[in-house]
């Protein structure tokens, strides 16, 4: 009880110094949490990928499309249940800054994505309208799209002005599903291309391949690719997760940099905290020597320093943890649609707590050992 009293009162002894250290810890734990959440957000698409979906694309690059005629041959591969078309449209909504993904998809596309929930009436309305489009809930919320609205797009990959009518708004089955995209009929794009640029017609960006057994994914992928070996457009088939991770890997250096920065932030606060504890312990050398003279052991003196360090870290880290979800929400809003899924994960919260704990312990080790070892007669001579 006495130890706790001494710890708490010592922690509050230099209010400005302790306050600034707490603030530094708050910022460090908060920054660490946000940076880790940014990394998690990068992997969110891959984490949400289905194990029953494969992606077949050109083996050369995603920039190259595949003939639509491949579809029937892929469907014929043993283990394949469904094949859907998907082509990246990449148009601009009003201004380039209003970026959101648009895909020209086949009518059966949503059969492969049960995690997207669309009322049947809206689905039928979309199927009936060749210029119809479906928008995800996050996208609809961001731009205020409603059913019946016209979305004008300026083509970048497919030049010209395009107009789509919102026929439905789909939701994600849970909050981990990204619903920040727009889908419209591949048939409409293809017909338009036949008129505008016939050479680009009958091409598909990627085929989404539904399979009946996830454990056969590798075997089915090989079987699909074997179909088009030595053809003009060879394919590369991989799981949806591998496909998503290939996008993430393009940003590996950025992710590594973010990761390093998050650790550097913790190292900096560790140095600040260690300095604070060293100063505190040094100022109290005579007090520690007095306690030892009175009969308190070296362990008690070490406990006071560890306790003070942990108390400061508990307050700073606790405040940082408490503020992280609010800061994440603000960050998500400020980042626009860049991170559709930006939620602080449980593992990030645990890592934040571990960092605060680590800083508390590591910062106190040297001062605590020194204080516990100081000779009483030397300590009593010291001036705080």
């Amino acid at each position, binding site marked *: 009880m*006495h130890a706790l009293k001494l710890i708490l009162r010592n922690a509050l002894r230099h209010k400005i110094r302790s306050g600034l250290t707490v603030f530094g810890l708050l910022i460090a734990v908060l920054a660490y949490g946000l940076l880790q959440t940014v990394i998690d957000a990068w992997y969110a698409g891959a984490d949400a990928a289905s194990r029953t979906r494969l992606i077949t694309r050109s083996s050369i690059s995603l920039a190259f499309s595949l003939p639509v005629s491949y579809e029937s041959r892929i469907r014929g591969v043993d283990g394949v249940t469904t094949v859907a078309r998907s082509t990246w449209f990449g148009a601009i909504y009003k201004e380039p800054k209003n970026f959101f993904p648009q895909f020209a998809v086949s009518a059966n596309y949503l059969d492969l994505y049960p995690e997207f929930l669309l009322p049947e009436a809206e689905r039928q309305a979309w199927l009936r309208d060749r210029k119809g489009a479906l928008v995800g809930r996050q996208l609809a919320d961001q731009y205020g799209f409603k059913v019946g609205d016209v979305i004008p797009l300026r083509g970048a990959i497919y030049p010209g002005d395009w107009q789509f009518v919102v026929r439905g708004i789909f939701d994600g089955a849970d909050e981990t599903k990204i619903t920040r995209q727009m889908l419209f009929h591949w048939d409409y794009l293809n017909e338009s291309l036949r008129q505008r640029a016939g050479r680009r017609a009958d091409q598909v960006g990627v085929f989404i391949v539904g399979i009946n057994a996830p454990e056969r994914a590798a075997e089915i992928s090989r079987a699909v690719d074997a179909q088009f070996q030595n053809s003009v457009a060879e394919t590369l088939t991989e799981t949806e997760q591998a496909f998503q991770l290939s996008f993430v890997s393009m940003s590996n250096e950025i992710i590594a940099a973010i990761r390093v920065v998050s650790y550097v932030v913790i190292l900096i606060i560790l140095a600040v905290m260690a300095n604070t504890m060293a100063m505190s312990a040094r100022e109290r050398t005579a*007090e520690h020597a007095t*306690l030892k003279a*009175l009969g308190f*052991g070296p362990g008690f003196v070490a406990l006071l320093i560890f306790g003070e360090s942990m108390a400061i870290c508990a307050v700073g880290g606790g405040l940082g943890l408490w503020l992280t979800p609010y800061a994440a929400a603000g960050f998500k809003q400020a980042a626009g649609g860049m991170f559709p899924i930006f939620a602080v994960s449980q593992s990030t919260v645990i890592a934040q707590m571990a960092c605060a704990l680590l800083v508390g312990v590591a910062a106190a080790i040297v001062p605590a050992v020194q204080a516990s070892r100081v*000779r009483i*007669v030397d300590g*009593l001579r010291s001036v705080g």
Partner: protein
Amino acid sequence: MPVEAVAPPLVEIRHLARAYHRGGQIVPVLTDITLDIQRGEFTALMGPSGSGKSTLLNLIAGIDKPDSGLLRVGGLDITTLAECELADWRSHNVGFIFQFYNLMPVLSAYENVELPLTLTGLSRAERRERVELTLSMVGLADRMDHHPSELSGGQQQRVAIARAIIADPMLIVADEPTGDLDRQSASEILAMLQRLNTELGTTIIMVTHDAHAAKTARRLIYLEKGELLLERSAA
């Protein structure tokens, strides 16, 4: 003729030596000190700076260790005790009074005095009773909740005296207890120490530069260059 039993000395020192290492050199501080201090004595250690009086006090109090010689306190050779055993021994047997009081600034007068008792098995109620009684003895019953910064130097030293006697130690060591006080406060502190010695029979060893303070003691030991130079008894 009946033989009167002679009580063993509380502090028994034989051929005690202590040196410090400074910059690769060995500086002798105490050389061949032999001395007995009886129970109930009030002893003043005097001498010029560097004479070794504080070192001798520290050795007797068990916060420093001699290089050679015998040092028994209460019949126990404290030079053989390990660090933690020595700490435990100090908590039960030695009360400390320092020149600069050495109170915990974050604790109140009450809590400072209670501190040594937290190392005993006394209950909270028992501790309270003893602390209140002891603070009353030193005339600070009305200042229990005050922190050291809210007390004068003399009052702080009285809190330190209360802390020193609270666990009823067999020995009180005081290192320049009046060195930081004005004449009036110093006289009060010395009178208090004298009362402790005469009324309660507490053994006190006090280091002082002040001849006036030394007169309070019943025995004077003068050291110079690490050696006992003079002994005088007030009686």
